[in-house]
């Protein structure tokens, strides 16, 4: 409890200082009092507009994340056990991994138009990399003795993959999913900032143009909550699904 | 006056809001130059005892004195050897042995030469510029030994130092430790769960009880020195061995019945 209070000390102090500063009248316009932001949030909840934008954003991020993570994990696990698959992906991934995928965004807009398809494509691409790499290394670093002992107990190659490699790689797969989830939100916001007519990123951009800073902070708050909530969900899923592999070591951040 | 004095020592830990007594009143006197082994079942608090002697863990009740002065924290008068070696992986064997001399502020030329001399003592002169990752377990422990001896500590505190080695290497290391002990005459406190190791090396063996740890038996090993490995074939040795085995077996059974939580 005391630890919690100390942990909340800095953020709470900052909020109060912010509130006071905003109310003095000497602050620039973009410093909006937190209480004003809450008021705007309440108004947007009542007229439902916040749900519309949040819903669109969540849709883009989850669809993009789900598709990208599915293919990334599948390809990564297969590449981890099958040499020809590894040979196909390895040079492509190692050449393009350090390249910021976001640079493709304007190009993808010219290919698919500025609608949702382009946003899905770029999120899928961005999520593919971390999920591929994590599950690839996860599958590749499964201890030999585990595979040998499964073979010794009569498991077929498919059974070894399904019942030994996949579960053993799971902690790493989850690390990849976590990074991918964070990325999908980042790309979602960025692509909506660049071109959209609905969604939280759009809301920030539009609020910026009309100098409605209160709306801007509302959107920021929601994006922050989404990021935080998604990460917590992922952690809970990880703890529930990987009981034996996470005992004694709560996953840190990063 | 005793050299090392353990005076009614008590240690408790709090785990999940339960107080667990790890050490329950240990009294022990050690003379200068004596080689004392402490054996006991897992979780009996023997490693905790060593950590308190080293000054890493504070004393709850009782007192520890070295040469009449209370032990209050870590210090270079007590050299500690860990089972995990605790070598610095970014330094060569020679660099590791030089490390404490740098801390002490010894001039460069002198510490280079001193470190070389101590690498010779542990027969590692040929591995001077190897990194720990390039050394075998036995070699790593010899580097750790040289790194400790270079400070000329008054006492060596060894925590299952050969526990991670294979049995052949372990016997060689035991023989080498006795040789170094013979040359330097250091007082040694040696924690182990290996009965043979304790008898072969020591002047005295202290058997501890299962948790909470107390001294169950403390006796002298009157085997002639210098000892060679073939001493293990003599009936006198076998008698000591059987004695410790009987003492320890009861405690191992008792320890097995305990719950695993709160083990120090």
């Amino acid at each position, binding site marked *: 409890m005391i*630890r919690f209070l*100390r*942990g*909340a000390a*800095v953020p709470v102090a900052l909020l109060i200082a912010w509130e006071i500063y905003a109310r003095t009248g000497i602050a*620039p316009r973009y410093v909006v009092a937190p209480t004003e932001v809450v008021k705007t949030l309440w108004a947007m909840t009542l007229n439902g507009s916040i749900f519309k934008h949040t819903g669109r954003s969540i849709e883009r991020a989850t669809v993009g994340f789900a598709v990208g993570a599915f293919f990334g994990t599948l390809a990564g696990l297969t590449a981890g056990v099958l040499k020809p698959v590894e*040979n196909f992906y390895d*040079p*492509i*991934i*190692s*050449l393009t*991994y*350090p*390249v*910021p*995928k*976001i*640079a493709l*965004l*304007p*190009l993808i*807009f*010219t*290919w698919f138009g500025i609608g949702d398809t382009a946003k899905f494509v770029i999120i899928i691409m961005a999520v593919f990399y971390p999920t591929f*790499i994590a599950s690839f*290394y996860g599958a590749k670093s499964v201890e030999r003795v585990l595979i040998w002992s499964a073979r010794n107990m009569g498991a077929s190659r498919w059974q070894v993959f399904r019942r030994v490699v996949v579960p053993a790689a799971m902690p790493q797969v989850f690390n990849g999913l976590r990074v991918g989830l964070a990325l999908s*939100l*980042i790309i979602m*916001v960025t692509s909506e*900032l*660049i071109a959209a007519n609905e969604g939280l990123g759009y809301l*920030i951009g539009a*609020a*910026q143009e009309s100098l409605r800073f209160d709306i*801007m902070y509302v959107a920021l708050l929601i*994006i922050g909550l989404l*990021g935080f909530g998604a*990460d917590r969900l992922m952690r809970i899923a990880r703890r529930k699904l990987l009981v034996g592999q996470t005992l004694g070591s709560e996953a*840190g*951040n*990063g | 006056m005793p050299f090392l004095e353990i005076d009614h020592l008590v240690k408790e830990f709090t785990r999940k809001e339960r107080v667990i007594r790890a050490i329950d009143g240990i009294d022990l006197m050690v003379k200068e130059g004596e080689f004392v082994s402490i054996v006991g079942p897992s979780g009996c608090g023997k490693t905790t005892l060593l950590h308190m002697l*080293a*000054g*890493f863990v504070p004393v709850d009740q009782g007192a520890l004195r070295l040469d009449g002065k209370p032990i209050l*924290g*870590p*210090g*270079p008068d007590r*050299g*500690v050897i860990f089972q995990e070696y*605790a070598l*610095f*992986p*970014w330094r060569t064997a020679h660099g590791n042995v030089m490390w404490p001399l*740098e*801390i*002490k502020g010894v001039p460069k030329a002198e510490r280079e030469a001193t470190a070389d001399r101590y690498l010779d003592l542990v027969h590692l002169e040929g591995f001077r510029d190897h990194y720990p*990752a390039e050394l075998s377990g036995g070699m790593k422990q010899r580097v750790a030994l040289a790194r400790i001896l270079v*400070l000329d500590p008054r006492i060596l505190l060894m925590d299952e130092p050969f526990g991670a080695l294979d049995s052949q290497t372990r016997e060689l290391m035991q023989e080498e430790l006795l040789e170094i002990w013979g040359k330097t005459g250091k007082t040694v406190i040696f924690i182990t769960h290996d009965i043979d190791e304790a008898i072969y090396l020591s002047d005295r063996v202290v058997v501890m009880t299962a948790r909470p740890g107390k001294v169950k038996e403390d006796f002298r090993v009157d085997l002639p020195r210098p000892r060679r490995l073939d001493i293990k074939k003599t009936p006198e040795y076998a008698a000591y061995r059987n004695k410790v085995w009987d003492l320890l077996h009861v405690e191992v059974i008792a320890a097995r019945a305990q719950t695993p939580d709160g083990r120090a």
Partner: protein
Amino acid sequence: MTPFPSKLRDFLAHWYSVPLLLACWEIVSHSGWVQPRLVPSLMLIGQIFWRDLLSGVLIHHTTVTLYRALGGFLMAVVAGCTLGAAMARNRTIDALFEPIFSFGFPIPRIALYPVFIFIFGLGDASKIALVFLEGMFVITLHTYQGIRAVPNTMVWAGSSMGANSRQLFWRVLLPAALPMIFTGFRIALPVALIIVVSTEIIGESVGLGYYIQFASASFDDAKSLAGIAAVAIIGFALDRALIWLRNRAVFWQPEAVALG
């Protein structure tokens, strides 16, 4: 078996997918299935890249992008290492800052960019500030965790050999945490480039992100791809440079390879 052809065969077996993909691209470009303007031939992209490289246009934009990315990154290195180390060594600082980092970590900070524009203006400062913030999170957390993960015995060994707390920090904790700290750098540096390019796409009149965005907006996909190639080369080169540095700084550990 002579060594040379077998080497060549190994090389092909390992690298065949790259030329394969490029060939597919070229076939699509010439096939007439799509407008060649959308999938321009590699030759055309190369020509434009070469032209803008020689005229200095690409170099100009690259310099700006690099200045922003590296400027923010280096500031994040200094601040992140200091704060991470302070958190790991001091209970009060830890209690005050750790929640900000563990709670704030999963929040997409790029959304703050519009706010930063108002505080720092449209130019370099807002982008450097965002790179700094993003890099700071990663580097602080890695430094913190790296120092916290140093085995007790290693610290004990140091203190029993007479090291004081300053010596323990510089001669035990810091080198022992260095591999982890470098892992943080390797995550933060590509992120720095991503942030700069994204913000340049959102609103700027200079930098590689702007170059790509402007070309795409004028439906000049070949030029856009030339810009993407420039970003790719920088991203690749920065990562390799960091690996090189890491393998020298953390020489006692197995070498880092190109992938995370």
